[in-house]
């Protein structure tokens, strides 16, 4: 018999509806998996008692016929989401002991629909990173290991989320994506990750990294699971001024499998000269799959693509430098005393923030400084507008855009540690969509020569997650990605 933890969300919901098992049973299986998987270091806080309580409530609601669309599904929550009464750290030392008195809108929506919280999962500190190595609570390991048996990073910043889902320590997880933080770890861990349109999911109660880019989204094992979970997470929220008041469609219903006549754009600027051959080959394979399914392939141009990374690494640190000013030792979290207010600030922030966060605060402070603002921040904003226009122009001739998700498979721990620029290059394919605010999804599409997952990315029109998901569903079926990581973390090879 299939283990309960091997079921997709859709199958688990069917099993619960069919009374094959209860949510408590499902949750118990996951609690055990979480306890058995600590060597991956995905979870920063486990909440098994809360999980079982929520599971029991879900079972009761199912018995009463009032079950929500995600009733009884155990989830991992990225530790960037504020959860009432549960330690919330952003994987940073500076939030030591911070337990919010409030629940983020997105997690509230999930609990409203009956989902179950297994705990909080690690991330790059304040979501700044592409490898989950900058967490104060230690690096997270990718459940996937290369053929040589060496460790790999899970990607980031939602690395804990992706690792937990890939290791079947959660049915699915929430992530957040600022420049690729959902899509890249999904790609590295053989999962589906969707970053919805900016404004689709509320940012209220999600600790801010770069406000104009941050967007919550799910990391799941299938496209259908992503559709179900996004439907719960999304929605207008008056508490977030950048939230958009537009109805949430039935995303699962959009997965018709029919993409005949749909126009798929292939941006020539994404064909990097130094991209690994296997990445380009997978991309070509994706084109063939979609063509075979009846889509029309169109060559498009996103001419400002090469400016996306430098633009992103000005805009995001600028906002972060301001967003992180509130962590000053005065109100909550870490305080390292000093003999004056200024020295208390300096001591607290020097000890509380890791190197990558410090680096970005410094960059952000610099680009906003008098005399540099126009040359950096203002210019970056203008480029951002041009990048957004690239997409607008492209969508005049196509419905979705197909690209690789990341320029490589998961790399090894420490490989990019001494070179922030090469680390930042991981986001080269994901950042443009973040700057433009358009939705993007990563779908596992094949394995690298090393036996590691590789993802393809689909980008869509604003608020057209339905088309993105529909095409993703077709790719998923064509790719038939069934590989699983070797279960090294429990020693259970079954």
């Amino acid at each position: 018999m299939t283990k309960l933890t091997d079921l997709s969300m859709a199958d688990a919901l069917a099993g619960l509806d069919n009374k094959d098992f209860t949510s408590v049973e499902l949750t118990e299986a996951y609690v055990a998996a979480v306890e058995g998987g600590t060597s991956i270091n995905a979870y920063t806080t486990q909440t098994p008692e809360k999980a079982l309580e929520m599971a029991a409530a879900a079972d009761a609601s199912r018995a009463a016929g009032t079950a929500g669309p995600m009733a009884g599904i155990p989830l991992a929550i990225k530790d960037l989401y504020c959860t009432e009464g549960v330690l919330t750290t952003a994987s940073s030392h500076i939030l030591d002991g911070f337990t919010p008195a409030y629940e983020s809108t997105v997690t509230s929506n999930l609990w409203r629909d009956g989902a179950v919280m297994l705990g909080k999962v690690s991330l790059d500190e304040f979501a700044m990173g592409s490898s989950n190595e900058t967490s104060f609570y230690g690096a997270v390991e990718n459940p996937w290991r290369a053929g040589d048996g060496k460790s790999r990073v899970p990607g980031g910043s939602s690395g804990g989320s992706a690792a937990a889902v890939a290791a079947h320590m959660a049915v699915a997880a929430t992530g957040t994506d600022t420049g690729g933080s959902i899509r890249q770890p999904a790609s590295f861990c053989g999962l589906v990750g969707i970053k919805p349109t900016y404004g689709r999911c509320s940012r209220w109660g999600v600790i801010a990294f770069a406000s104009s880019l941050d967007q919550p989204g799910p990391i799941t094992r299938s496209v259908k699971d992503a559709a179900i979970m996004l439907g719960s997470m999304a929605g207008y929220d008056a508490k977030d001024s950048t939230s958009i008041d537009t109805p949430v469609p039935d995303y699962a219903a959009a997965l018709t499998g029919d993409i005949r006549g749909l126009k798929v754009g292939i941006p020539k600027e994404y064909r990097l000269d130094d991209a690994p051959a296997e990445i380009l080959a997978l991309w070509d394979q994706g084109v063939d799959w979609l063509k075979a399914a009846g889509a029309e392939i169109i060559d498009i141009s996103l001419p400002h693509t090469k400016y996306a990374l430098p633009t992103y690494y000005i805009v995001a640190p600028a906002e972060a430098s301001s967003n992180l000013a509130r962590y000053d030792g005065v109100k909550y979290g870490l305080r390292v005393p000093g003999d004056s207010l200024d020295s208390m600030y300096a001591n607290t922030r020097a000890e509380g923030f890791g190197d990558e966060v410090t680096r970005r605060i410094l960059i952000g402070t610099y680009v906003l400084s008098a005399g540099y603002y126009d040359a950096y921040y203002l210019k970056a904003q203008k480029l951002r507008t041009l990048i957004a226009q690239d997409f607008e122009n492209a969508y005049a001739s196509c419905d979705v855009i197909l690209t690789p998700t990341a320029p490589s498979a998961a790399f090894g721990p420490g490989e990019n540690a001494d070179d922030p620029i090469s680390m930042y290059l991981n986001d080269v394919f994901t950042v443009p969509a973040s700057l433009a605010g358009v939705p993007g999804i990563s779908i596992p599409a094949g394995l690298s020569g090393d036996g590691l997952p590789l993802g393809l990315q689909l980008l869509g029109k604003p608020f057209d997650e339905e088309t993105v998901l529909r095409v993703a569903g077709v790719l998923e079926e064509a790719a038939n990605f069934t590989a699983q990581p070797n279960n090294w973390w429990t020693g259970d090879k079954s």
Partner: protein
Amino acid sequence: MSAGKSNLIAGATGDWEVVIGLEVHAQISSEAKLFSGASTKFGAEPNTQVSLVDAAMPGMLPVINRECVKQAIRTGLALGAQINCYSVFDRKNYFYADLPQGYQISQFKQPIVGKGTITLDFLDGSTKEVGIERLHLEQDAGKSLHDQHPTMTYIDLNRSGVALMEIVSDPDMRSAEEAGAYLRKIRTIVRYIGSCDGNMEQGSMRADVNVSVRRPGEELGTRCEMKNINSIRFAQQAIEYEARRQIDILEDGGTIKQETRLYDSVLGETRTMRSKEEAHDYRYFPDPDLLPLEFEQSWVDELAAELPELPDDKKNRLMADLNLPSYDAGILVSEPEIATYYEVVAKGRDAKTAANWVITNLFAALNAQGKSITDSPVSPDQLGQLIDLITDDTISGRIAKDVFEVMIKTSDDPAKIVEEKGLKQITDTGAIEGMIDQIIADNPDQVTQYAGGENPKVIGWFVGQVMKASQGKANPGAVNKLLKEKLG
């Protein structure tokens, strides 16, 4: 002081001109804060009016309070200023313990209100136009309490996030008196439209004062800014002191350093707070948590149509329609409550008489009791009734003053006081005649004086005697007329 008069300050080496610009921070009279639903009531226990947003809890987001936007638009309209239907909120970044977010949400490049003009009024009836540079919306900070603990500072966040309008003037003022008139005028305007209570003692209106000096006709000098002054008198004292300080430095061959200074109202002097080199780099940038603030011109038009009569319009109307002198009209419109009070008193009555009663008698009585017009023991209806009693000859003007004294103490209606105290004027000629006959009979000498024409003023003495005999209640007109008849 009028625009035409000289405002120059004499120095040892010649005359100097002081140039003043003011930034007024006016707290919007709203129930809730600019970006959160927390209450804004003054005087609550520390940290009892703080939302998660005001405390800058992680993940919290600002949402604009439409009421505050409305009040900013109304104030802009009242300042005769341009309303910008598109404006942008920026973050002003700096670290301070009572600034929980580490930035203040303000408006930097694109404020909600642009250029306008207000007219200052002076006691001699002259006026002066002062330009308004802009008005923008911003959050207030919290308050640091340094006196609660020997080594620690406590923070009260009740004010954190409260909506302020920063009203920036052009550097158009040339004396402390003009600056005072400007502050009074701004206060009058915001109080008329109810966008701010103008209470400087409670800090709901504060001023940053920029002062520089120059030789008449020359380029602007280097300015110093005195922050957070919470009374008009202190603002004027700070300007006087600062202008003199700068003149002394320049006349000694020194130069003025641009800096932020503090006015010490106890010592009556200004001193350095921070120099230009120490000035913050605020790293302004558009707040990514907020969309640009956009609204329709039709809303502005609607708010303009609903504005109450503004002080200048009211003053002009009092002068044109009621023939009041500029001085009287200026005083009566200086506070909306005074104007409202006056208009009730004056309704259907002689405007000048009503003005005299309010300005002279009522204000003197209120001053003596330390009360404001809103807690006047005499209601405007009662004061009007008193005037009516004079007009219909029930009492004389003299008696009316006595009745008014009683009204101030008891808040009783004038008719009741007149009745109870038997102060009703004697208009019965028979009774007056009786008193006159008696006085004539008792004072043959004076009668002779009058008849002989030696002393025509003696008639006044007779009037006085009759009034005395009647305890002031005899109708003075009737007394005069009868006396003349009787004395031939």
